[in-house]
């Protein structure tokens, strides 16, 4: 038994090490100087750790830029927040309502519609960029944060609807009947009974959608216009230059900085995440 335990922890430890080592590389690289990176191995610890690269990634390097922006991530952090909050609320909210309507209010064709909607989960957004541009243009919101938010809602709704529909399908019918008899209509049943019930799955949907939206690059680049460029575009401007000289420590620091909000969400919500999934996503 003792050996079994030892093997168990051994295996878990190895797995954890494998999962963590790339993250370790990012952090340690971001703390090194460029000379050390040019001459050393990526696995070594920084000889003289410093946060210069982090500062440069966050504030930019004003000496080297054109002036009105210093090219750091700080300028677009707020833009990202401005995009992610409404996009998250709308895509999750609409998914919750749609999933609820499809699961609870049996209507003719509800299953067909759900099936049709699911396809959206599998379409690579990049592949249908042009028609989307044309549509958003015709709506008159191209190049605005509003347009970008709509795009995120479009590409998020299939996933969120699926999460919520599958969860609401597991809610006992009696509960719905009781609420109907108590006089709750469509919205009040949703608001007072179903939404509070769905908190765990709401958490999971929010976390995953947050990750998708926060990490999006191409949609932000295309639809955000001049004012709506999210942090990932700024990140790309820092790290994605093809013909300029590379500063890997800044690249890594910038990457870490961009990932920090999502990282924090996962660190803080690990337990909630599993519980949320247990509550809905895997019940059948």
């Amino acid at each position, binding site marked *: 038994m003792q050996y079994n335990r030892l093997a168990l922890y051994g295996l*878990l430890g190895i*797995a954890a090490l*494998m*999962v*963590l080592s*790339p*993250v370790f*590389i990012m952090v340690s690289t971001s703390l090194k100087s460029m000379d050390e990176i040019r001459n050393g191995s*990526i*696995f070594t610890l920084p000889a003289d750790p410093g946060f210069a690269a982090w500062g440069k990634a966050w504030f930019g390097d004003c000496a080297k830029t054109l002036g009105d922006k210093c090219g750091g991530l700080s300028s677009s952090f707020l833009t990202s927040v401005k995009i992610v909050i409404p996009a998250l609320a709308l895509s999750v909210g609409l998914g919750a309502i*749609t999933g*609820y*309507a*499809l699961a*609870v*209010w*049996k*209507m003719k064709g509800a299953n067909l*519609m*759900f*099936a049709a*909607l699911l*396809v*959206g*989960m*599998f*379409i*690579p957004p*990049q*592949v*249908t*960029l*042009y*028609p989307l541009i*044309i*549509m958003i243009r015709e709506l008159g919101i191209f190049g605005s944060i509003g347009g970008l938010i709509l795009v995120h809602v479009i590409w998020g*709704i*299939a996933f969120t609807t699926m999460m919520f529909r599958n969860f609401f*399908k597991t809610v006992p019918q009696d509960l*719905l*009947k009781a609420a*109907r008899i108590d006089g709750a*209509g*469509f919205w009040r049943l949703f608001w007072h009974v179903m939404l509070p019930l769905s908190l765990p799955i709401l958490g999971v949907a929010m976390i995953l959608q947050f990750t998708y939206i926060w*990490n999006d690059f191409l949609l932000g680049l295309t639809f955000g216009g001049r004012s709506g460029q999210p942090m*990932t575009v700024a990140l790309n401007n820092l*790290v994605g230059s093809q013909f300029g000289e590379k500063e890997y420590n800044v690249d890594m620091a910038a*990457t870490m900085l*961009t*990932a920090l909000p999502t990282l924090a969400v*996962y*660190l803080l919500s*690990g337990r909630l*995440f599993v*519980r949320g*999934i*247990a509550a809905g*996503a*895997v019940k*059948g």
Partner: protein
Amino acid sequence: MAEPAQGGLKPSQGGRRRWRPQWTARMALIPAMTITIVCFYGFIIWTFVISLTRSRLLPVYKFTGFDQYFRLFANERWWTAMQNLAIHGVLFIGGCMLFGYLLAILIDRGIKAEGLFRTVFMLPLSMSFIVTGVIWQWVMNPGLGLQEAVRALGWASFEFNWIVRPDRSIYTLAIAGIWQQVGLCMALFLAGLRNIDPNIWKATRVDGIPVWRVYLHVITPMLRTVFFTVFILMSAIVMKAFDLVVALTGGGPGFSSDLPARFVVDHILNRQELGLGAAGAFVLLCTVIAVISPYIHFELRKERGGRGH
């Protein structure tokens, strides 16, 4: 009871009186329905229409029949990409399932510091595919990464150079992809394991069945739905795989690790081949529908059969 277990709230017949909640429910579906029809299917149709034209940089509506499809099917890179999609799909989904399930089992064995391990395994989920690609490009680079590090430790013949080998590069996509998504799969499996009736464990303990057999023959079949959910979520990721290839291998060496989504985007945005790209996109979308329709069929049939309590 005579009513099907899948009762739901049925609409009343007729409509003499006040506004009915069922009508509100229909109204509430309008946004989602609009998105589905206009964006998902409208875009697919648009893509098909464009694939019949000679559009290059911008959409033009000069039709050329199925020329673009002939060009597409004559294109070696397209076939490589499609073949890679199949390979990557099998490896990535299979790998996520296998490793996700194993990690979940290990964590479920009543260990200390469960929360720590769980968090660690879910950490990569917070990274974007771009970031994942960038990191793993480093790690797998033979001159910089793992190979060099192991050789520096004294194992001079150690080889891990898949990312630079055309015949192996596609596997590196799966490695990085699994690294990123294994946490989600683990969480799903863990949740499934937690939902299993503890009496099952008591029963198998009484029967003296070895633990591994219990997992293999008892628990795994019980987690069918979880496997299914994992399959669906991961196959959605495979179908959409784009960022990861761009960041990890750039489709290379050559185009040995290209995937259809990248092929399409490359041709539409960089190569003035909108028509050809659209043809590729349409084939890809058809593949998507072909792959997921059994799922949808299964899902809806399962519900028609009822899940009564």
